[in-house]
């Protein structure tokens, strides 16, 4: 129940088929950069004031006692920054005088940021360093107008996990990191295979169901060298593909999709062909979801589990939070329409939705235009602003609700309800 022009308006509830901004995604208000600077006894400094050598050294210091330390050389950090679109200007280092306390990096892509390499030097933990760096990175995301931030936390890192929950992150999936020593597959390679170049491989990779881990996103593959792929058609008609990166000594970013048939059979055939060609290569695959239907094929060909991460999302726009719930609820979303007059909202929703789901997004700037588009071909999901001109938002919503009851509707604003964090 909200009020508009002194008239009580009964907003439709979830049971009537649409959602409106509510307060359950309200997250703790973020401090500003100056508040961060005045709150802590140490400084949080933009990472662009440091050389890559200094950042590499700082990063390695934070990881020295980790079960999985993953140390980096300068070359490896430079590659990491490039492949994962890490924005050094918006990444941060916590310093006490000339002593490094911790650091965190921010990957930035349209509609989404990614917090990575967040760590605190042993002996300096539990004093708010990690929180200060996290808040800096979130403030940087907010400054960019981004409503969706993701991260992966190593399973078992309870203090970090608690910190992320406190600041509005929600767990989405459990991810497995796998390794496989060199050696051929024990399975014979059966089926018709076709090798793909990078361009063809990226095109297929873009058809994967969302969400996709940042590490293996199309942008990460696009930024990587020696990406290629492989398709298979099995004798029983099963079909699928594998996209991967061939580094100097190791095959990585191995992504499989079955388009027809049994994922185990498709995965097994693809791996058999892959290791027939590259029997001497080590293999590494990070962030395979525990629900990935190809996981048994990974184990079958000899991958072993190294460790696990928990993927977490922080969604600050209520409309996006609802959309995320729809996606998680496996509601089929093939086409979505965003109707809003605010360009920033439209772009934010469009770009973030591309991270969250596979649906095609169309944009309209008036209720009339939106209604015409609906009549041409209905949408599965409508994001509507109640203030839009033409037919006003509520009129559009009513028309759509009556004519297209299967469409899920999310109001991007509602009377008296603004963006949760602005």
């Amino acid at each position: 129940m909200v009020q508009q022009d002194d008239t009580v308006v009964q907003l439709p509830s979830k049971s009537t088929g649409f959602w409106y901004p509510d307060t359950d995604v309200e997250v703790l208000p973020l401090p500003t950069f100056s508040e961060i600077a005045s709150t802590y006894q140490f400084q949080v400094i933009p990472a662009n004031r440091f050389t890559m050598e200094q950042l590499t050294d700082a990063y390695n210091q934070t990881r020295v006692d980790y079960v999985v330390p993953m140390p980096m050389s300068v070359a490896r950090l430079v590659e990491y920054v490039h492949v994962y679109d890490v924005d050094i200007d918006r990444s941060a280092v916590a310093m006490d005088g000339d002593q490094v306390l911790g650091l965190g990096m921010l990957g930035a892509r349209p509609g989404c940021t990614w917090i990575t390499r967040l760590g605190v030097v042993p002996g300096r933990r539990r004093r708010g360093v990690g929180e200060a760096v996290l808040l800096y990175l979130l403030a940087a995301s907010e400054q960019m107008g981004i409503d969706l931030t993701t991260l992966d936390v190593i399973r078992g890192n309870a203090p970090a996990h608690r910190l992320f929950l406190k600041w509005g992150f929600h767990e989405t999936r459990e991810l497995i990191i796998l390794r496989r020593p060199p050696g051929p597959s024990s399975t014979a390679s059966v089926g018709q295979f076709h090798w793909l170049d990078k361009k063809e491989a990226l095109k297929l990779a873009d058809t994967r169901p969302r969400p996709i881990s940042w590490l293996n996103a199309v942008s990460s593959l696009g930024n990587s060298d020696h990406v290629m792929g492989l398709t298979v058609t099995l004798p029983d008609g099963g079909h699928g593909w594998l996209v991967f990166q061939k580094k100097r000594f190791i095959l990585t970013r191995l992504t499989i999709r079955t388009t027809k048939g049994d994922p185990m059979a498709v995965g097994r055939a693809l791996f058999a062909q892959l290791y027939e060609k590259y029997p001497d290569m080590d293999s590494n695959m990070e962030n395979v979801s525990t629900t990935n239907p190809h996981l048994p094929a990974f184990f079958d060909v000899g991958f072993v589990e190294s460790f696990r991460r928990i993927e977490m999302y922080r969604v600050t726009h209520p409309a996006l939070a609802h959309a995320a719930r729809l996606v998680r609820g496996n509601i089929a979303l093939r086409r979505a329409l965003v109707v809003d007059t605010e360009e920033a909202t439209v772009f934010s929703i469009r770009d973030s939705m591309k991270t969250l789901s596979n649906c095609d997004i169309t944009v309209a700037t008036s209720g009339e235009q939106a209604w015409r588009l609906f009549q041409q071909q209905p949408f599965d999901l409508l994001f509507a602003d109640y203030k839009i001109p033409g037919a006003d938002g509520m009129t559009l919503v009513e028309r759509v609700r009556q004519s297209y009851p299967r469409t899920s509707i999310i109001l991007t604003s509602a009377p008296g309800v603004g963006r949760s964090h602005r």
Partner: protein
Amino acid sequence: MPKVLIIDDNADHIRMTGRVLTRAGYQVFSASDGETGLDLAIADRPDVILLDLGLPDVDGQTLVGWLRREPVLEGVPIVAVTAWPDDVAAQMVAAYGFDGYISKPITFANLGNQVAAYLPSDDA
């Protein structure tokens, strides 16, 4: 005097482990990344290699493959040094063909004996 090659990117670990092993009667040399470790091992065949799994250039799993491919290093025990939980360490060590592993944090009082276990009995 048996020779131990320590491959570890952490200078403190190398210093402390090296000191303990030297006191226990070993000749110790070290490398802080995989490529240097491989070069040193080939140039001066050690009796045992202690290999940290997390290295800045290649990781220990990849490096063990390189080391195993060198004919001059045939028969040299390669021992992983890792903070993995035992079940993961055991699986990873078996899959990648290490001779065994030593868990981190290292118990220095036992280290000499742990390394000796990988040497022929008349060597230790």
